[in-house]
């Protein structure tokens, strides 16, 4: 058996060079002898540790002889201060518990929220030199708004911009992996062959695409680490294997490394294939680029603007009012989350300040008890600086111990938070899987801990150093409390009130705003709806008639399931995160004033409006007669009619969708507006056409059920398999879930803010109570004198409470200003929120006033029952 290796390693590191060999040798020998004498290993190891620690202390510290020359006196006395602070904590467990828990709370929430903010805003994207990566966003210059996609055929032209090293593109390419037990739906992307080179991430196995994969080498695929592990059992010989994707054979040429995620701020891909052969129109894509070294976004924007202008000149039909915006990739992903995250960071900052104020109070209250000790030490010759340093060390010790607890708690909180996040967030945010305590978070937590320890210790230390004056007066330990003390107390109450008022009000504003958001009518009934998607592969469903026939059969089969009220299909359902826009033309020249009239296209089956619960506001819905060969018809929504038809009756107009050879469609009806992407965005113009007249390649189904829609998942999958066993249903979920997910950022922010508001209220209640009781007990003599001079108990109560009113009002004013600032920040997240809602401000002001009243009640009661004679005698 060997001696404890850790102790031995520490000895080798900490002992002076000349002592290492004999000391370690002696300890090893002693250890061997103890074992030989029959000691249990544990006991011998304990002795080893004890002697090792003492040896280090004895060899580096002072001993009973002359100074050995080792040991820095400052370090030694700081170690003494720390030991002393630990002893004091041990001696007052109630103080230790409340101080440590308060600090743990403050540091814990700060650490957790910083970790979240790091993922959402700060952490660089996991690519080579990510700061140079940009998105090239399609921009509608007439309306100055983003259209995320640009035409694929424009990508080479954009790549000619000199400030950009390279331009690549990607496009959704959902793929069905078949040839296995159950066909499975994968999130795939078509990407430019240069994408992986541009990102600077090599494959972990095999190779990624490169320029050598000419467009048209369609028989290859690169897969993600997750897919490799989940589906292929992490087979190391996977490269070269053939798989069936959308019924077409492809060879796996590479596996990407585990942390690789692409794209970002979009569904993370499981697999990537190159775009088709040159010359084929791939439709619209998301374009991305890499800035040349030293070039700026502004330079790239100027170059791209020139290219857009030339394209618009050469192709006026398709490129009028179409521009491209260059945005830093990280920035685009962070932009949406920023207001909420900044507000949360500010909120935890305030909560941390509140925790510091509470700890300062605890330290101050204990300082009163220790006044005698401190005065004595000053009288015995300890310098003021020495006392200040000791008191600051004490608050730092509290901060460090508390933050250790807090960081552990933050780890748990982040695990809980990750479990609360919906799949849609987990599968789109880069790095969210790694949300937790890492080196960056720990670094920030350490800095915050030191700052909090110093902050909480400033007032007590200042106060401790003042003990000297008291010692001279011989008043230490008794009815202390000069004007300085009452100023510190007032400042603490003001901060407690201000901080908690700000947090409570912000939570209230958010509650009111998010409540309003969730109560928004989406324009249809999301309850009792099960939704899912099916993609029809070109190999078997290239003919529109085949796709239409499939949808008809599926509707018939699913509609016959027991408990199903009705079934419908459409190209893109609301809240599905998919959308499809199309350029439109209206007869009668009504669109002349519009530069690029467009609407969202919905291809819907006859039962669509009834199934979703979208009201018909005029004309008729689609019927059995609206077949492939029938009269081309369309239905528009209210937003369409308002924007493009003015006050005209819709049925007098015809609309043409897409290019010049598309048929004119008669508008046969109008329906209510539907919110498509989120509850806070108003409905856009929509035009519905019969699905049979334009069957999509990806179909979404909506099933209205009698009971819980989740109960229908299995019957629906089985029913679908009976129609086509090779087509997996994907994105299967209740519509109500999809609507909830669309507001997840708001709901999550609300939950966190509400939690912070409640914690703030609790902290403030304890803090204010502590300050007032201390003030009352310290002023016992003053109270007694007042009573002796004829003050009634009611006078005393008025006096104590009256003293709290000033700080309360000051706190409300300061906190109100902070709440207004936070509210303005959150206005970007919850547009329906009124950041100056007087009811919310009034209500939380009343809560705070009640809190002060309750916190002051006990001390006031004690003051009213002051035993005059006893108090005066004690003094």
């Amino acid at each position, binding site marked *: 058996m060997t001696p404890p290796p850790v102790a031995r390693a520490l000895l080798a590191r900490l002992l002076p060079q000349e002592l290492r060999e004999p000391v370690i*040798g002696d300890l090893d020998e002693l250890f061997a002898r103890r074992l030989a004498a029959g000691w249990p290993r544990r006991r011998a190891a304990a002795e080893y540790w004890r002697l090792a620690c003492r040896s280090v202390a004895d*060899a580096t510290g002072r001993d009973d002889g002359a100074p050995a020359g080792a040991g820095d006196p400052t370090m030694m006395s700081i170690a003494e201060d720390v030991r002393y602070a630990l002893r004091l904590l041990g001696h007052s467990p109630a103080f230790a518990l409340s101080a440590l828990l308060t600090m743990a709370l403050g540091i814990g929430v700060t650490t957790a929220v910083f970790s979240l903010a790091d993922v959402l805003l700060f952490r660089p994207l996991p690519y080579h030199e990510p700061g140079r990566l940009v998105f090239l966003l399609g921009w509608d210059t007439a309306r100055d708004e983003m259209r995320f996609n640009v035409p694929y055929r424009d990508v080479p032209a954009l790549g000619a911009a000199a400030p950009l090293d390279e331009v690549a593109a990607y496009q959704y390419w959902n793929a069905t992996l078949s040839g296995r037990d159950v066909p499975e739906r994968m999130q795939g992307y078509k990407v430019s062959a240069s994408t992986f080179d541009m990102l600077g991430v090599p494959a972990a196995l095999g190779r990624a695409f490169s320029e050598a994969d000419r467009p048209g080498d369609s028989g290859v695929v690169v897969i993600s680490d997750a897919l490799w592990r989940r589906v292929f059992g992490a087979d190391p010989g996977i490269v070269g294997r053939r798989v069936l994707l959308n019924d077409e054979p492809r060879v796996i040429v590479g596996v990407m490394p585990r942390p690789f995620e692409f794209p970002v701020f979009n569904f993370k891909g499981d697999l990537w294939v190159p775009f088709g052969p040159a010359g084929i129109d791939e439709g619209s894509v998301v374009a991305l680029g890499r800035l040349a070294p030293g070039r700026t976004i502004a330079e790239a924007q100027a170059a791209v603007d020139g290219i857009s202008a030339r394209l618009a000149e050469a192709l006026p039909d398709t490129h009028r009012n179409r521009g491209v915006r260059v945005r830093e990739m990280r920035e685009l992903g962070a932009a949406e989350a920023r207001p909420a995250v900044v507000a949360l960071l500010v909120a935890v900052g305030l909560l941390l300040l509140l925790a510091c104020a509470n700890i300062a109070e605890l330290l101050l209250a204990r300082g009163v008890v220790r006044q005698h000790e401190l005065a004595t030490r000053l009288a015995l010759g300890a310098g003021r600086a020495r006392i200040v340093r000791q008191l600051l060390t004490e608050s730092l010790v509290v901060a460090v111990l508390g933050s250790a607890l807090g960081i552990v708690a933050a780890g748990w909180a982040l695990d809980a938070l990750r479990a609360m996040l919906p799949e849609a967030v987990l599968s789109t945010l880069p790095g969210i899987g790694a949300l937790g305590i890492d080196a960056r978070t720990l670094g920030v937590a350490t800095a915050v801990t030191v700052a909090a320890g110093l902050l909480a210790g400033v007032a007590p230390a200042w106060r401790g150093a003042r003990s000297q004056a008291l010692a001279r007066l011989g008043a230490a330990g008794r009815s202390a409390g000069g004007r300085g003390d009452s100023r510190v107390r007032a400042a603490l109450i003001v901060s407690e009130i201000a901080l908690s008022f700000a947090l409570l009000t912000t939570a209230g504003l958010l509650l009111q705003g998010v409540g309003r958001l969730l109560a928004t009518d989406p324009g249809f009934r999301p309850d009792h709806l099960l939704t899912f998607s099916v993609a029809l592969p070109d190999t078997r469903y290239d003919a529109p008639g085949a796709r239409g026939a499939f949808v008809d059969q599926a509707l018939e089969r699913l509609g016959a399931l027991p408990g199903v009220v009705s079934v419908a299909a459409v190209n893109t359902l609301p809240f599905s995160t998919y959308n499809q826009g199309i350029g439109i033309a209206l007869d009668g020249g009504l669109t002349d004033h519009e530069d690029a009239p467009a609407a969202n296209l919905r291809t819907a089956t006859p039962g669509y409006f009834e199934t979703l619960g979208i009201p018909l506001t005029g004309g008729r819905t689609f019927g059995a007669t609206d077949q492939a060969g029938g009269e081309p018809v369309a239905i528009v929504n209210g937003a369409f009619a308002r924007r493009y038809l003015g006050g005209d009756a819709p049925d007098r107009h015809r609309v043409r969708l897409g290019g010049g050879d598309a048929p004119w469609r008669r508008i046969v009806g109008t329906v209510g507006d539907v919110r498509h992407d989120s509850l806070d965005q108003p409905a856009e113009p929509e035009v519905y056409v019969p699905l049979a007249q334009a069957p999509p390649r990806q179909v979404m189904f909506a099933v209205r059920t009698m009971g819980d829609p989740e109960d229908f998942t299995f019957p629906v999958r089985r029913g679908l398999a009976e129609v086509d066993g090779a087509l997996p249903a994907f994105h299967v979920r209740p519509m109500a879930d999809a609507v909830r997910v669309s507001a997840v950022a708001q709901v999550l922010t609300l939950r966190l803010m509400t939690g912070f508001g409640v914690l703030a209220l609790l902290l403030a209640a304890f803090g204010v109570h502590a300050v007032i009781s201390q003030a009352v007990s310290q002023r016992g003599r003053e109270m007694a004198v007042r009573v002796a001079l004829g003050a009634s108990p009611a006078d005393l109560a008025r006096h104590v409470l009256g003293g709290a009113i000033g700080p309360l009002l000051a706190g409300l004013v300061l906190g109100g200003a902070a709440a207004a600032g936070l509210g303005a920040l959150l206005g970007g997240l919850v547009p329906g929120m009124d950041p100056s809602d007087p009811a919310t401000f009034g209500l939380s002001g009343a809560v705070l006033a009640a809190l002060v009243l309750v916190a002051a009640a006990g001390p006031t009661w004690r003051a009213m029952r002051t035993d005059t004679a006893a108090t005066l005698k004690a003094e």
Partner: protein
Amino acid sequence: MRGSLGEFEQLLLLALLGLGTEAYGVTLRDDIERRTGRGPSPGAIYTALDRLERRGFVRSRLGDPTPERGGKRKRYYALLPAGEQAVRASQERLRRMSHGLSPKADLP
């Protein structure tokens, strides 16, 4: 006072006097613990011996490494005449100071 010794240094020198040639950390510690009930740490022992060696009271030599010492060599110490003189002088001073104070403080 030049040549004065601390209590611990006296204990070490007296132990060296008794142990002869077999004096190193472990035997010194055993001896002191057996007689005084106080087991000093090896760190303290070698720090003090190091200082005594620099003052010319003791000298040390390295022994051979043994397996039970984890391959570390022993450092043997021996008392030099100056050390013996110093410890006797210290004892004498103490004896003179304590003589007649009380029976308990009277040294042999």
